[in-house]
């Protein structure tokens, strides 16, 4: 049986598109919630790539990495949301360009 009905290059292309959507979202949007979502997009682009390669090369390490990334992404989301909540409480505002206390 053919292991992959869809060719690998399609997965890579899709992953790249999703990743750059995420990058653009982080760079362009000023709402921290949207930025966090964009970061999740980047994570999942990477996950898709891991899973695709794992399937293509019949190697389970890729799957293991996907679980690792999901875990890290969950932790990152938790911390990120906590920061957003804290910033909102002190600044009454969620525009990341206004949060520039560390300007040198």
């Amino acid at each position: 049986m053919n292991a992959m009905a869809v060719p690998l290059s399609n997965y890579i292309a899709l992953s790249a598109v999703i990743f750059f959507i995420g990058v653009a979202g982080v760079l362009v949007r000023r709402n921290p919630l949207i930025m966090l979502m964009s970061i999740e997009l980047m994570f999942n682009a990477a996950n898709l790539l891991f899973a695709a390669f794992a399937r293509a090369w019949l190697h389970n390490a890729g799957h293991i990495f996907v679980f690792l990334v999901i875990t890290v992404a969950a932790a990152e989301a938790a911390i990120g949301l906590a920061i957003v909540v804290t910033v909102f409480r002190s600044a009454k505002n969620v525009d990341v360009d206004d949060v520039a206390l560390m300007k040198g």
Partner: protein
Amino acid sequence: MGVDGSYPILVALWLLPLAGAILNWTFGPQLRRLAGPLGSAAIGASFVATLMLWGSGTQRINTGGVDLVGAHQTLFSWLPGFDFGLLLDPLALIWALIITGVGFLIHVYSIGYMDGDNAFARFFAYMNFFVFAMLTLVLSDNFVGLLVGWGLVGLASYFLIGFWFFKPSAVAAARKAFVINVAGDVGMMFAIFAIFGSVHSISFGDAFAYAGSYATPWLFVICLGLFIGAAAKSAQIPLQTWLPDAMEGPTPVSALIHAATMVTAGVYLIARCAPLWSQNSDAQVLVGTIGGLTALLGAILGCAQWDIKRILAYSTMSQIGYMIMGVGVGAYEGGVAHFFTHAFFKAQLFLASGIIIHALHDEQDVRRMGGLMKKLPFAFVAMLTGVIAIAGIPFIGSGFFSKDLVIYGMLAHGYPWLYALGIVTAGITAYYMCRLLFVTFLGTYRGDVDPSDLGIRHPELAGTSAASTGSEQEPEHAEHDANAQFFMAVPVALLIPPTVLIGWLMFPSTGSGQAENSPWSRFFVEQFPHPVLAATPISEGLTGLITFAAVLAGIAIAYVRYATQPAQVNAIERLRTESTRMPAILRNAFYFDAALDAIFVHTSQLLGTLFGRYVDPHVVDGAVREAAISAQWLGTLVRSFQTGLLRAYALILVLGAACFVVYYALAAGGVR
């Protein structure tokens, strides 16, 4: 150099004074009056040990064609070439005998002289420490040990000159002596570096065994460095100015350190390095000339002093000039002989002057003395024997024989101008010593005369005090004083026989008239090089006669000026005239102090001001300031990257990642 072996007595001789010093330092307050006897006993024991070592110190063994003279013991070895040990050969033995023997007498004298001083134990601790340091100097078998002793005697001298540290003048004198001596130490240090660089060893034996192999200019530099040290320690021109000031110390200190032993260390150094000196005639000419000039200068200045101790200080300088002149040109036996007799008679003179100063309650100006022959007959006898010895009256003054050896040595080694200089100086010496004797002891007592009548300009500076010679004293004090006088009189009495007689050691015993046959010369026969000398136009006996004629002339002038009946009657007027008409050049000691100040002190001050005004604020501070400014500038630059904008950081991250991707894509040879 010496016969190797284990000599426990030698180590004891060396360390006993140190033990005395430590005990006196540690338990001074508990010892109270016992500090003096304890300190004296340490030196006395050391003297006995020296006598016991006479046989070892003079033994001669010939092994493999090499004569080994004296005793040698290695104490410990350090780096290769650095072996430390003790060496007792005839030269070191003579010095050790004087240091411990005369040192012991002066310690006993100090029990009386320092009686009642608050820091009695401290004084004896310093004195014992000095003896230990001086023994280190003369017993070391290597240059580094010698230099250590050299530095330590300078330190002891500093302690003792400044012993009465509440007197600003004493502190200044101590500091001056120390600084000048350290300048000499530096010269010596470089000479030792040069020696070690040549032979890779610090021991005397190695340094002298290859004495012939040094390059001549190099050897001259070595000798010059050693002589700078010797000149500073032995008060030779131009480093002599500290010695008269050093008389601020207590009189026993002047007798032991600044007359008998420490100031003759330079003579010891040159005599010890005779194998080096004999190889370099330039160094011989230089040292001989400086010694001769110092002898003359000291004698001339001795004629112009009024302070009894300063007269003796200048005479010490002058006599050391003789010794340096002797050992400098190669008449080693003569120079060392003069050290030997000088140690006795100069100690005698200082101790006798100490009796006078003590009796007159710290009066030191001879103009305020006079007529003391009746009041202090014992001091007069002691002083008289000393004057006879230093002036060089034949046969009854020990200085005659030794001085004659030096003066004749000048002619024998081919230095007629130094010969003439030595004879002239002998005449001047006789004049100023008789002047001291006559002014002090003849005539009538002048202590109650108004100082300005005597031409004393600054009586408050002259250390004058109410002149009473014991009539108003409390009975208890008088008893105390009698006790002190006993301790002071005994050593002086013991010094009289050697002062008069010790010179006979240098007298030819076989009747051939040649000084080489004297016991003294035989004692040193293996110690010093003996070049073959040309016959001299004037024989040694005739030299003695010429010198004696000069001495008689000096005595006659002094007699006419100070001792005749009219001179004694008009003493006050005479002294006033002499004081007020004293040429400024003599009052200022030929301006050596001013010259040294101008050359060294003012130059250093100018340099210091220059550095303080320009180098420090602009170079040192400037560098620090520039460093701070650059750090600030760098900080400003780096700060501009920190925008605080989260999205800007993200952009930089993305660009950086893009750079990595592009780089690896290209490095891998493009997309496959």
